[in-house]
């Protein structure tokens, strides 16, 4: 069984959720798993997390296992990166963040467990794309790590919770927009789209 680092609460399923409200997040239709602040990743090996998952969901699917495993590994890289950056070893920190980026991209095919989970993993991938190779600062690495912990400890995430995570990312300077799509759409808006001009 688990280490007690996760807590669980039941919720009910709803076809149409009110995404902006707190109450809607409890309508995700899945059992939520809430991380406890300040948990060190090294205390949460995959087998322990999967024990916790098993106790709530039954036998975890391949998709769920892979997502948790990859988020766990990406988080591990973030923690290494934080250690390096604290010793001013910027290059080594960046190497670890490159690993984290690779794990985040690997998470993409497994993200569709719940709408919020998919949203936060896609946003994380987009944030990495928009960094365009620029090294992460400590605040940003800590933010990525918080999100990865959120994913592996709460793999069935509500949209409301996911949006909070992306607001945290935005506050840390991450950009989660698609620049290409923005150019196309903003240009269309300026050309009179929707105004009939």
């Amino acid at each position, binding site marked *: 069984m688990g280490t007690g680092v996760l807590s669980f609460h039941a919720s009910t399923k709803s076809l149409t959720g009110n995404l902006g409200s707190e109450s809607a997040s409890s309508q995700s239709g899945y059992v939520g798993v809430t991380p406890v602040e300040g948990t060190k990743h090294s205390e949460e090996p995959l087998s322990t997390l999967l024990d916790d998952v098993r106790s709530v969901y039954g036998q975890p699917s391949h998709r769920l296992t892979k997502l948790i495993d990859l988020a766990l590994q990406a988080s591990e890289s973030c923690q290494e990166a934080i250690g390096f950056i604290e010793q001013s070893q910027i290059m080594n920190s960046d190497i670890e963040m490159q690993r984290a980026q690779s794990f985040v991209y690997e998470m993409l095919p497994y993200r569709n467990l719940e709408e919020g989970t998919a949203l936060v993993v896609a946003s994380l991938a987009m944030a990495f794309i928009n960094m365009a190779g620029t090294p992460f600062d400590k605040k940003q690495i800590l933010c990525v790590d918080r999100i990865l912990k959120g994913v592996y400890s709460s793999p069935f995430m509500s949209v409301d919770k996911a949006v909070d995570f992306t607001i945290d990312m935005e506050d840390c300077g991450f950009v989660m927009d*698609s620049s290409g799509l923005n150019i196309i759409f903003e240009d*269309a808006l300026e050309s009179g789209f929707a105004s009939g001009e």
Partner: protein
Amino acid sequence: MLLNRGLPAVSKAFLDTTVLTDILLKSGELGLWSREAIKEYDEILLPVYAMKEFSSGPLSYWIWLYNKFALTKSLSKTILAISSMVPMKPRTAQTALEALSLCNNSIPISGMTEEENAEFYRQVLLGKIMRAWKKRRNVVPGTNVVDDLPCFTEGDPLLKQEDKTLNNAACKCHLRRGKDCCAAAIIKKHPDDIAALIKAIEGKSRREDVSRRAVLHKMLNTPKLSLNARECRNIGDAYFAIQAPRDSVILTTNGKDHKELADALGKQVLCPQDTP
């Protein structure tokens, strides 16, 4: 002061819809002026009317785009849908092609199907839309939301689980039978200002000036008649000119329209053209 060139120093900013949109929906270079401009002020006043316009305008356009991804499940079909909505100028077409190539380069893993690509963009857009809506009342810490409009319901966008489409119909005016539009009730308290604005746009033939003049005339000459939701929308920039406190500056990226109205009432406007 970095931005307030030639204007008396003021510490309050009254945000219009363009600035709210820049801050909530644009990133990088786009919207940079607005994000920098609000840092110059001690107090940020955000009228609910700006949120109302934001919801029925820019936010609803991004929801349209989001729904295209959800329904077509295709990046190329979504781009085609955008281009079919506007007469594409040659420059725009070129920009679109470059942007499309940027989109394709943004896909982080190879071998994703067109539907998987579209799903990726749909989820990124869902985050953008929901984040913007969630932050609307707190564009910067300490934002002071003013001029509440009881007939306007700030309903959250709803996600339909079956087809993943978003619907922001819950966010709209709910005028009660026989009750006047709340925005109109606020504006009608200032008949002298209404008259000054009518004079300022007298003879103008642009569509928005014609419809604004008509609604201003109605409020001035027949104040007991109620305004409907469409007429409320037509108040537009006149709302900001009348409601901005005299010790504030109206922040906007649409300086031309706002200055014409604000000047008539002796109020200040700051727009990107005012800054070097």
